[in-house]
């Protein structure tokens, strides 16, 4: 996308300004989104993102700029502007790039650059809509979408790195709205991964539609949720958002290096119940949060974060490694050329255990079974987090009683990790978008169903 001679002259210019490290991140992405409303195509949107991110590092200080103009003179102008207050003894460099071909571990087939396959996606969403409506005449509306993106990146840096990578993302899903005339409730289902539209072969439009409607109808019949401190069973798959928010963000060197994480000085210590083993894995085949290389050009890896309750690793990017002394874990990620990379999660999950769901429910006198979770957020400095229950049930005397609505779970990361007492066998992963300092990146969350002994449930009963 950028010729190496231009890149070399720009990188050399950065070093001549006294920078310790200079990098160009070139991105050209194309995307296509098909949206449906009921059984009609509401829109088809597509576009090209193109730009170049320029990073200069002086010590641990990051100077970052970006532009849509690829001319070497424009890139040098931005570098000079960035470095104007940091001029040091000019370095002399004639960077020789050593092109490194990255092996594509995920090899997508039905990619956007071959064909956007709009008709096929529309057919899938229509089938999902039909399945959703088959759940009953209380389903008043559906919204479907299928978004496909091909991200091409090219990296050059002053250490001679020159590499390219292509990431193929696809995500599709449906939201059902159920209405009984006075109230409305929603339910949704989605699938996705690091692959092309061959995703279609692994998923079912029938399941997408029927699951969305089942959840909407459950929520329509749900009662107000009891509130207060109580045990909560958190469902598998997207339930892993609890670990993502409560712990994952606090293990990123983005907050560790600033001592803005409660875990910054706890390496090697027991930070969780011994039944907790947690991993951040960038290598999982065709998973939504996987990558071949990170956005700094480093190989990705499987990183064991917690082993038998003990903190074993942080998620470390280049600057984080420099600041904390821990080795980089191939976790430098960014939404696009508009962001400097930062340490971020990939596919993050709690490994499965051996508990049974019935035993978890049977052990609770008064509590909640949160079978499906929504999103949440965390304040890394204090570890305080919240996340929303999108499908939940009240448990009394060891038995599920009735569905509940509008519940939020709040606690702190350090507290909840120690309150996880049972981990089940039904492990699964789910797709999400994680927002942080370097923008929104695709991440998977995951776990088997697990029990938290004590957490604050916010309901309005």
């Amino acid at each position, binding site marked *: 996308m950028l010729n190496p001679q231009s890149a070399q002259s720009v990188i050399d210019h950065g070093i001549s300004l006294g920078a310790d490290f200079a990098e160009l991140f070139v991105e050209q992405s194309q995307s296509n989104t098909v949206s449906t409303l009921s059984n*009609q*195509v*509401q*829109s*088809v*949107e*597509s*576009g*090209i*993102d*193109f*730009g170049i991110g320029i990073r200069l590092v002086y*010590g*641990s*200080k*990051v100077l*970052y*700029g*970006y*532009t*849509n*103009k690829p001319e070497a003179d424009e890139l040098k102008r931005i570098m000079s*502007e*960035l470095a*104007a*207050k940091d001029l040091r003894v000019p370095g002399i460099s004639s960077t020789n790039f050593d092109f490194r071909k990255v092996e594509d571990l995920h090899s997508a087939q039905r990619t956007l650059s071959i064909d956007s396959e709009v008709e096929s996606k529309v057919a899938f969403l229509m089938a999902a809509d039909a399945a959703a409506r088959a759940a009953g005449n209380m389903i008043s*509306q559906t919204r479907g979408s299928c978004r496909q993106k091909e991200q091409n990146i090219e990296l050059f840096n002053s250490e001679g790195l020159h590499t390219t990578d292509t990431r193929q993302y696809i995500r599709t899903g449906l939201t059902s*709205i159920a209405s009984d005339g006075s109230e*409305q*409730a*929603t339910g949704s289902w989605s699938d996705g991964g690091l692959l092309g539209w061959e995703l279609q072969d692994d998923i079912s439009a029938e399941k997408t539609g029927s699951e969305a409607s089942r959840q909407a109808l459950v*929520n329509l019949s749900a009662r107000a*949720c009891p*509130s*207060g401190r109580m045990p909560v069973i958190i469902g598998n798959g997207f339930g892993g958002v609890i670990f993502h928010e409560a712990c994952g963000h606090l293990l990123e060197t983005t*907050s560790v290096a*600033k*001592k803005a994480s409660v875990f910054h000085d706890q390496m090697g210590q027991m930070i969780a119940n011994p039944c907790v083993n947690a991993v951040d894995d960038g290598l999982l085949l065709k998973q939504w949060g996987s990558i071949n290389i990170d956005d700094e050009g480093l190989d990705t890896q499987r990183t064991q974060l917690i082993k038998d309750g003990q903190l074993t690793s942080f998620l470390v990017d280049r600057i984080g490694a420099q600041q904390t002394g821990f080795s980089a874990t191939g976790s430098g990620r960014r939404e696009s050329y*508009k962001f*400097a990379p930062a340490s971020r999660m990939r596919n993050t999950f709690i490994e499965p255990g051996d508990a049974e769901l019935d035993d978890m429910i049977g052990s609770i006198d008064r509590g909640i079974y949160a079978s499906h979770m*929504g*999103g*949440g*957020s965390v*304040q*890394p*400095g*204090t570890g*305080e*987090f*919240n*996340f929303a229950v999108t499908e939940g049930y009240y448990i009394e005397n060891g038995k599920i009683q009735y569905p509940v*609505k*509008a519940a*939020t779970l*709040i606690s702190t990361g350090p507290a909840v990790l120690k309150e996880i007492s049972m981990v089940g066998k039904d492990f699964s992963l789910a797709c999400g978008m994680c927002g942080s300092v370097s923008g929104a990146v695709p991440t998977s969350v995951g776990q088997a169903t697990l029990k938290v002994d004590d957490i*604050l449930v*916010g*309901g*309005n009963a």
Partner: protein
Amino acid sequence: MSIETQAQQVIDLVKASGATGDLIIDQGESLSLKASEGELEEYKVSSSQILGLRVIKDGKVGTAYSEAVDKTALNSLVEQALTNASFTATEAHESIQLNNAQLMTDDTVLCPAEEVSIERKIEFSLGMERDLVAKPKVKNVPYNSVQDITGQRHIFSSAGLNARSKSRMCVAYAYALIEDGDKNAMEGAGQANRLFADLNVNDLVARAYSNTIDILEGSPVESGHYEVIFDEEMQASLFGVFSLMFSGKSAKDGVNPMREKLGHTIADTRLNIIDQPLNSQGFGYSLFDAEGIATAATPLITDGVLNTLIHNSATASFFDVATTGHASRSPKSTMGVGLHQVEIAAGEATSTDLFAGKYLLLTDLTGLHSGANAISGNFSFGASGYLCQDGERIQPVRGITVAGNFYEMLGKISLIGKDQYWNWEKSARMPHVRFADIAISG
């Protein structure tokens, strides 16, 4: 290639294909600085441009965008939009308005000239962090930023529309992490002004510090139903989360619960909500909407009655009403609707009445994006703030949740204050509203 040349090339191609269309060109330049431990940790500059095209051919609408602007990219932009249109259902109500207005915002008001050296901005950034770290018990200032952002939008259409707006925003914010033994807290404050010179570092540092230190000793209150006042930041955010209730687009799509309630009382009869796009004190100022339609003040709720939904020309046509000038579109999106700048009219309660007796003042809500369902109105958020008695803060409160149904809450208003406040981002202007009977879990 100049903006006008790019636009002309695209619009000519659209017309040659037998379609109509409009083109948004957004450009931006920004500088942002972050400080850490007395040093500049991040220095970011950007220069960006993006084109977003909407075409209508044979009653079908297609959109496409591009950040590349060479001739090939512009040709591809038009081709893609036309291809996308071919897949969509016929949309009888969406059209390119016969609007050849020439509109331009006033740079002297929205984008005032100011000479500010980069050294001064760096000193502001470093000084803000330094002064906050120097306060007792502050461990560090993990999130801080000083930004100078200029954005410009052009809209051109095949009907001859040429509208331009330009706006500048100078922003500073800082979040301090305070630790004292086992206890910690992180809160902050922000400011936004059109002139850098109007940012006040001393005020910002003082507020960021007091917001954090005051909450440090917070603990949950007993679960129950409380009278609640949200501070000016959280109240604006809360109303923003549920702004779908005014959306003509959501009503057209069948997901707005207020669709059948036009002309009905949906809130306490003392509540008046108006969209005020032409108040230039705020950053929601909009001279025209995304279709180039001139904006005007729009009463949304008048004496508790839902007066109107907000419309673009397509949703207005669907409901057989006039557009309210609320078309909203980013270069990457299809046409929707959006509020410009929400105002709640001043009520009659004096501070003495508003803050009488016992109530919770909530100064932070967490999970606003995930804990709310704008279709049902249900919400459950993490919250912190203060238990107050007769205007005095008697206990800092943390680790609680607030839950309820927003649309029901609009009918549970105890009092509306006489004084209006901007939130710090200056996107909404409201008096304090005191709500009754709100479920709190502690």
